[in-house]
């Protein structure tokens, strides 16, 4: 079955730095990927998604890169702010009926000012 893993459980950066959170997935049939942010006491909040027909997608201060060859995706946060401190999850889905979104274990991002 699918497994999704994050490379680092924690990441500490200084305010204003760029942050990169990496994720690997195992199922080559996965064709849709999502990054979520979870703050303490809250549910996962959608940040950005990408489909397998794309290599890169940009949002406001965030960029997701997808490398299907090595089954790897990353989330880049530009000019990281204290409000970005949270747990970040990547999730992958194979677009087949009855399949579930598989979440990675989460990377805790700590931003110090």
């Amino acid at each position, binding site marked *: 079955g699918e497994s999704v893993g994050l490379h680092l459980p924690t990441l500490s950066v200084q305010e204003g730095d760029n942050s990169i959170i990496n994720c690997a997935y195992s199922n080559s049939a996965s064709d849709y990927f999502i990054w*979520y942010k979870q703050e303490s006491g809250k549910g996962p909040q959608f940040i950005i998604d990408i489909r397998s027909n794309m290599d890169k997608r940009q949002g406001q201060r965030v960029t997701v890169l997808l490398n299907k060859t090595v089954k790897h995706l990353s989330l880049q946060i530009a000019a990281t702010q204290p409000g970005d401190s949270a747990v970040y999850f990547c999730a992958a*889905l194979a677009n087949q*009926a*009855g399949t579930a*979104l598989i979440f990675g274990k989460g990377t805790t991002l700590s931003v110090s000012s």
Partner: protein
Amino acid sequence: DTAVSQTPKYLVTQMGNDKSIKCEQNLGHDTMYWYKQDSKKFLKIMFSYNNKELIINETVPNRFSPKSPDKAHLNLHINSLELGDSAVYFCASSPSEGAGNQPQHFGDGTRLSIL
């Protein structure tokens, strides 16, 4: 105007009791989900319903029974609660079954603590 709302936010109860968690979404989505998040923050799908029909039922003890009275509601009933059921339970919804390349929207969770 909360999109996905769960009640209660906190639930503390004794082992062996039966409890329910309610979830409602006002997004007009067809599909709803229940996830369990353990103490290490690992999120795992439990169930998914599409238009009131069960689509996904992962390896979950049959003490857990989801009920969808209509497509805007998906409640979770748990019988004979055990210590290992302590976790945060999240409800989510998305426009179509299997996410259909649409992100799932999550509620803020119900923290269940078994004494």
